[in-house]
């Protein structure tokens, strides 16, 4: 989780993120950050995410759970 929080902070261009933070609340949030998340999931976690799945995950914690559940699927 720590690694993931750091990676998300980098994508969202902030010093740190909290698990409960809403994805759309970040200033940097747009289609490019979504693509960066998709690329991160593909590179580091070997799972494919869609825009809709990321939007449904809502928070940083939700996104982390989504990636873990896909890894275990």
């Amino acid at each position, binding site marked *: 989780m720590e690694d993931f929080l750091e990676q998300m902070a980098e994508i969202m261009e902030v010093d740190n993120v909290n698990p409960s933070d809403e994805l759309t609340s970040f200033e940097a949030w747009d*289609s490019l950050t*979504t*693509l*960066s998340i*998709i690329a991160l999931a593909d*590179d580091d976690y070997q799972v494919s*995410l869609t825009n809709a799945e990321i939007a449904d995950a809502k928070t940083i914690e939700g996104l982390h759970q989504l990636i873990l559940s896909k890894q275990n699927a």
Partner: protein
Amino acid sequence: MKINFSNKKITGMLSVLPSNEVMFEDEMHNYSFSEAKSLKLKTAMGFKSKRIVAEDTTTSFDMAVAGFDYLFDNNLLVKNSIDAVLFISQSPEYIMPPTSNLIHGKYELDERVVCLDINQGCAGFIIGLQQAFMLLDNDGINKVVLCNADVLSPKVSKFDRNSNPLIGDAAAITIIENTSENTSIVGEIRMNGSGAMALNVPAGGARMPITAETSELYEDSFGNKRSKNHLVMQGDNVFNFVQTKVPEQINKILENSNDTVESIDYFLFHQPNRFMLQKLADKLGVSRDKLPSNVVENFGNSSGVTIPVVTTFNLGEQLENSEMNVCFSGFGVGLTWGTIIMKIGNLDFCKLIYK
């Protein structure tokens, strides 16, 4: 479908780009994003300038004709030597007749010359090569002219940050011939029609004719505005498809051939954007300088024409004077993905010109 041919080779390649150049910054104000966000996108994706037709009245046919004129005028192609014309495009001149027949008519080609239009996009060069190789297996066919052409800039909304910055227009003419040399051409083409709508233009065909209603702009969840007459792309699905299927295909072809990543001199791929290409290079374990990704920043993504553009732009002179082992790969609309590994070189011409 597996590809396996011998005794065939590419003998010439010409790309035709519009002389009209548009910079990313020129159109940035059309997008509903802050300047900072758009500039961030520019850096990440490798956008800079693109080449698009100056007038919407310039078509794929016009771009192709500029290429044919150049080849005939410079004696690089002799009319009577042509046995077949393939025209691969998503922007044909008319619903009927085929654009290849219009080319046939314009140059008064002989009645024995066979013409064929194929509707294909990003993998259009691979599909075209494969069709050319098949045609060459028929009696009386020794030289095929493969024409890849697309003018899609009029089909993209200027207010769509997803597609507008990357789309370019271009045409290319590739000559493919039979040879007594024992050449080896291997590869594969695969398709997944369940993803067919991942890249589409909703209106303008029989299913949804263009009306006042389809021409109205709507806004998507990211703030991009486009109408149903415009190209729309599910970027997330396309990204996932490319990053999964393309390395898988190339690794499999390499496994079954005598080649390795090291024995390939250049990986000449379709050019969606620099971001995706660098990721592909890393995944394949190919150094980024062996997989050029500089087409979108200089010319834009011209769909099926990008492989000839990346080849003529980066290796023009080298391929006129030496031979290389290359891996061509095209992937996108369809969904279609195809790869061909072959030697190419000592070409009669390998040039990029402007119209």
